[in-house]
């Protein structure tokens, strides 16, 4: 046991070092602003006396001034509202946040309150970093289901906001080419969507009919594209047992998805994997791409040039329901925390509608409750992005909530990139299914024993038309 601890601490030191290296290496690749973690830590002073207990908190949003100010004002409010606890927050750049938490967990240095990306939460809960939340009864009643992080039947995290994806298009363009404008009730199906893409491409007016965002490597692939696979009826893992990807990742539905996915690139309807991020950001706005598949965060910049002409359209229904990804950043309590009561109290304090509205107005995300959405600038009734709240409520499909997701997401990303680049579809999907399954087996099932724990993607409520 002791020996193992020594290994772990050495490992932690190494990870910390590699973290510094990867942070240096990749920060230039992403849009992130690199701040050393220690640099931005700040002790919130609020006439605190030494008798108050300190609650430490880590947050992934270093570099975003607006986001940080909202968070600090909430912490201020909380610290002034009672005299038992003082919350202190430390910011990290998002690109190295997860690795920082892993390193801290290995070294036994986790803070009391951590924020966690929705799909990663089951991995951390399984690994024992998180303890279940203890909120008062009914606290979560109004929250969108996708903002509540569940693992093994218990709530581990809760999100103050949600994100949603949609197809951005222009009314004038669709009207010009006689393309029906889809609705939430009647989205495009595969044939209609495909025909629209062909028409737009054939017009010669655009470089590409649709921009999928292939430039955004990493989590965007599973977040943005696995809902397509799920809408076809496939999935990243078989979520009836969570112990295999066989049949889900490489079944007939997945192969149909893969063939269609490859055809998008073969037919030249979408930019390929070498798209650069500048084109991703400006292609639709400058009119070089006819449509764009993107999240609500891109709404403001698309609204500016197009105004009323801008359409925010629902994801196509490829046969198994119209689906979009779900689960954004959420807050949880670390398992090592000595002050779980205080940490839970603070999280519940943050869950007030006024703070949900503040975050939504500040960073453009969708508030987690209907009442907060109604009070927000962008998602209220009649506001430009109201429709996103409806999409989120109606189409959200969680990325498989299993600790296996961490590895599966990387395998999925590679499979989609390979298929886009011309790999044999069946071989690529078979290889991906094998790799995901092998990882689950190597980890003793990640806490699942092979018994059926829930509906598969084809049996869940979106497909059956809840």
């Amino acid at each position, binding site marked *: 046991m002791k020996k193992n601890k020594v290994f772990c601490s050495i490992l932690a030191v190494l990870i910390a070092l590699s973290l510094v290296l990867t942070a240096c290496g990749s920060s230039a690749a992403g849009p992130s602003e690199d701040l050393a973690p220690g640099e931005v830590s700040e002790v919130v002073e609020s006439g605190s006396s030494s008798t108050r207990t300190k609650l430490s908190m880590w947050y992934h949003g270093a570099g975003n001034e607006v986001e940080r100010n909202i968070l600090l004002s909430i912490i201020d409010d909380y610290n002034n509202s009672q005299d038992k606890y003082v919350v202190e927050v430390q910011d990290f750049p998002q690109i190295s946040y997860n690795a920082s938490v892993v390193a801290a967990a*290995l070294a036994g240095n986790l803070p009391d309150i951590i924020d966690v990306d929705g799909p990663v939460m089951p991995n951390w809960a399984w690994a024992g970093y998180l303890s279940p939340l203890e909120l008062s009864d009914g606290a979560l009643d109004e929250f969108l289901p996708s903002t509540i992080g569940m693992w093994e039947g218990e709530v581990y995290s809760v999100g103050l906001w949600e994100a949603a994806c949609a197809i951005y298009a222009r009314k004038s363009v669709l009207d010009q080419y006689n393309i029906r404008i889809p609705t939430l009730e009647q989205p495009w199906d595969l044939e209609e969507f495909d025909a629209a893409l062909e028409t737009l491409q054939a017009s010669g007016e655009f470089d590409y009919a649709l921009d999928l965002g292939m430039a955004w490597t990493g989590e965007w692939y599973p977040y943005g594209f696995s809902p397509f696979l799920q809408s076809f009826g496939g999935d990243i893992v078989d979520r009836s047992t969570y112990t295999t990807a066989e049949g889900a990742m490489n079944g007939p539905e997945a192969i149909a998805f893969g063939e269609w996915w490859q055809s998008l690139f073969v037919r030249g309807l979408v930019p390929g994997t070498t798209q650069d991020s500048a084109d991703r950001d400006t292609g639709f706005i400058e009119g070089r791409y006819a449509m764009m598949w993107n999240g609500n965060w891109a709404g403001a910049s698309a609204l500016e040039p197009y105004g009323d002409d801008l359409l925010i359209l629902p994801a196509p229904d490829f046969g198994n329901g119209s689906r979009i990804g779900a689960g954004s950043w959420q807050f949880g309590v670390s398992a090592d925390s000595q002050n779980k009561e205080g940490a839970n109290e603070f999280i519940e304090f943050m869950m007030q509608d006024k703070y949900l509205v503040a975050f939504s107005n500040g960073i453009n995300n969708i508030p987690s409750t209907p009442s907060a959405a109604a009070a927000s600038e962008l998602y209220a009734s009649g506001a430009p992005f109201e429709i996103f709240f409806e999409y989120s409520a109606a189409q959200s499909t969680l990325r498989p909530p299993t600790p296996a997701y961490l590895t599966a997401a990387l395998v999925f990303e590679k499979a989609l*990139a390979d298929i886009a680049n011309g790999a044999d579809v069946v071989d690529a999907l078979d290889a991906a299914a*094998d790799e995901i399954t092998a990882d689950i087996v*190597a980890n003793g099932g990640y806490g699942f024993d092979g018994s059926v724990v829930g509906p598969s993607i084809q049996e869940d409520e979106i497909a059956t038309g809840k």
Partner: protein
Amino acid sequence: MAQITKVETRNQMRSSKWPIERNTEAITAWLMASPAMILMILFLIIPFFLAFYFSFTNQRLISPNPTEFLGLQNYKQLLTLKILRLDPIKNESGEPVLDEDGNFTYIRERDITRNPDYPQYAGLQRWNSWDVGKTRFTLLASDVVFMKSLINTLYFAIVIVPGQAGLGLILALLINRRVKGVNVFRTIYFIPVVVSIVVVSILFRFIYDGDNGLLNSALVFITGGAFKPIDWLANTTTAMPAIMLMSAWQAVGIHMIIWLAGLQNIPFTLYEAADIDGANAFQKFLYVTWPGLHNTAVFILVTITIAALGLFTQIHVMTRGGPLDSTSTVIFQAVRKGFDMQNIAYGSTISVVFFILVLSVAIIQRYLTREKSS
């Protein structure tokens, strides 16, 4: 004789000192060396042995499951290669079944590797296959991506080592003159070295862009529109050469400087002597310059080889191993498996294999370039 007396006097001096003083000297020496030694032990020696240890276990980065000792299983998973011999599918009358193009058809490899009747092929994947007559020979590997990465890494090294070293030497010869303004050229050639490889990689992603990249635009302009734009990084045949070109451009400056230092160490009198003997420029290079550069050449060869085998940053930033694994490298796989996928044990196994690879290449080079005693 003179040397012996020197040693004797030193010995006399030593013995005349107080033993305590010698002790403090030793302590001081250890103290001075300790910061470097502690860091080296912590970040080089211990991780080195840890990697060996982890490669025999199933150690995960994070996991509530206890670590188990696996023996050689990781190495088996990484390195297994098998050849599968397949005969064409035949119908009931013994005639081979042909597909619509008139080719023989074969059973899918995965139907064998996933069939419990063939445990010897379990878990293997198809890497490549060749048809010899009617028989199809398929090469199966347990980790196809790693095998491809290994080949890619060697391919990169085989091109980059002579290419970059040669280019560096040519540049060094060109700027090794006492001409006005030569420092300007030295600076220009050296500038890419001081730019971070991450920055260079991002810039070259834009330059190689298939739709509106600088390289395509330039080639189209030069050829008057005859050149058809290529998406350099999306093409399995051009992606690796594109990365080689960029890497060589970025790193050649440092080797040019080292070559230059070697060139300037060659005594000028040798060239004068060669002139008197009537040697032409080529003969002077072959018999004066090249032998004089022997130690520099060995140094450059070893450093470029090690750097080339460790190819990672360009891949990580530009292609992430794609398209279709054509730019994936050994170190890229080690990071992907070990850190991204949290399988430290497997990442360690790749690192150990990488260590053995580098070590053997270095030993072979050392042997081939040894000073031959006459």
